[in-house]
């Protein structure tokens, strides 16, 4: 009889412990190990990219036959790689009187509104000489010489003209964000304002500032 009771109690205790042990294990895991680590959130785009450049410029453009005049405009660029970038530009100037108009003293060949010279273009630029520019002993700036060329539209003398442009420029980074540019650009288009088709070269030199963002 004693034996039977002992066996029953033993079996019961084994069953109870086998049932309880895993439950105990789980509870103690939660209580004993308290995580002391604040997990950082994983952000998908956590690093700021600065591949766009926007800015304004001012300079001089020599409009063929219509003398040299101030030009100003805005530019935007997208830097695809360290070597190549796309640039879009919108600029405006005003043509002066031709030498003939000044000397003859007769009636002007174009109306005032037709003398407005506006252009826009898209170009691809290549940073061919990246490096550092040293100014005396005290200053050093990152800089790059680039060559650039593209196609666009010029509106002048009451019509629009298909224009090819090419040139070169120098970009000096004052800090990571602000750049100073000097640019020289030739805008070439065929124009028949005076009867026959003629190819005109309109050379522009300008300087300006841009911001990377």
């Amino acid at each position, binding site marked *: 009889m004693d034996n039977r009771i002992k066996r029953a109690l033993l079996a019961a205790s084994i069953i109870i412990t086998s049932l309880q042990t895993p439950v105990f294990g789980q509870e103690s895991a939660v209580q004993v190990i308290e995580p002391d680590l604040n997990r950082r959130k994983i952000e998908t785009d956590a690093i700021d990219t600065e591949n766009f450049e926007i800015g304004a410029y001012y300079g001089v453009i020599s409009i063929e036959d219509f003398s040299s005049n101030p030009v100003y405009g805005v530019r935007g660029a997208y830097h695809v790689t360290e070597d190549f970038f796309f640039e879009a530009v919108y600029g405006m100037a005003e043509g002066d009187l031709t030498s003939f108009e000044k000397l003859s003293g007769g009636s002007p060949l174009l109306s005032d509104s037709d003398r407005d010279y506006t252009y826009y273009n*898209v170009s691809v630029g290549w940073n061919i000489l990246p490096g550092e520019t040293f100014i005396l002993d005290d200053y050093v700036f990152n800089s790059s010489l680039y060559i650039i060329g593209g196609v666009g*539209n010029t509106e002048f003398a009451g019509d629009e003209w298909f224009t090819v442009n090419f040139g070169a420029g120098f970009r000096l980074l004052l800090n990571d964000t602000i750049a100073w540019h000097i640019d020289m650009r030739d805008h070439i288009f065929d124009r028949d304002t005076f009867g026959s088709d003629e190819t005109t070269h309109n050379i522009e030199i300008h300087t300006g500032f841009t911001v990377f963002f």
Partner: protein
Amino acid sequence: MRHCLTGILLSIALLVTSAVSADDEADYIDAYITVPYVELHTGPGRGYPVFYIAERDQSVKLLKQRTSWVKVRTENGKEGWVTQHSVAKTIDRDGLTMGEKLPQFADDGLRRWELGFMGGDFGGTDTFTAYTGYHFTRNLSLELALSENFGNFSSGESATINLLHQPFPQWRYSPFFSLGGGVRNTNPRSTLVETEDRKDDVLVVGAGVRISLSQRFLLRVQYKKHTILTNRDDDIEVEEWTIGLSALF
């Protein structure tokens, strides 16, 4: 126009100040170097000299990215530019590499956006086009194209939306076909007698080849046939041949 220019300059000034004030230490990701060393350049390009070496197990903060270069700050305050390739191999506190953690460092994924411009001939006149496209898959993309052409008798501009299909996108010289439509403005030249500007719908079918130049750039040569749906008796058909450059990003 002067007001416009002042406005632009003002907004640039605002941009600059906001860029400066956003400099908060806690916002930057810490990355631990796992390779023997990484080189810090003074600028974002291979032409800028190496001025510092950060060693294995050091940590750097990732400040910003320009093209494939990342500006980092080391524990002792040196700031320089490191290639994206090197940064992708660094790890965070949990041992995850930056290449896995930040999709912007993975360089083998499908680049979905395309931007480019092209020039050429549109029915005997000069033309240029700027376009942007979105790639749904490697085979299929949707493109918005803005064109202008300049003729002796009239100039015009058009805006079209095109669906492009590349049957073999993995080929270096990958052919494509396009189908689209849009609107077209025709402006007779001012040297001619006054005639009215016309606005017509236009349908475009085309074919061409995309030639991959590098991972990010490709050359595109294409032929398009434009059917201009005029409100006169006959529709006008114009052939266009262009060549251009695209960037993928």
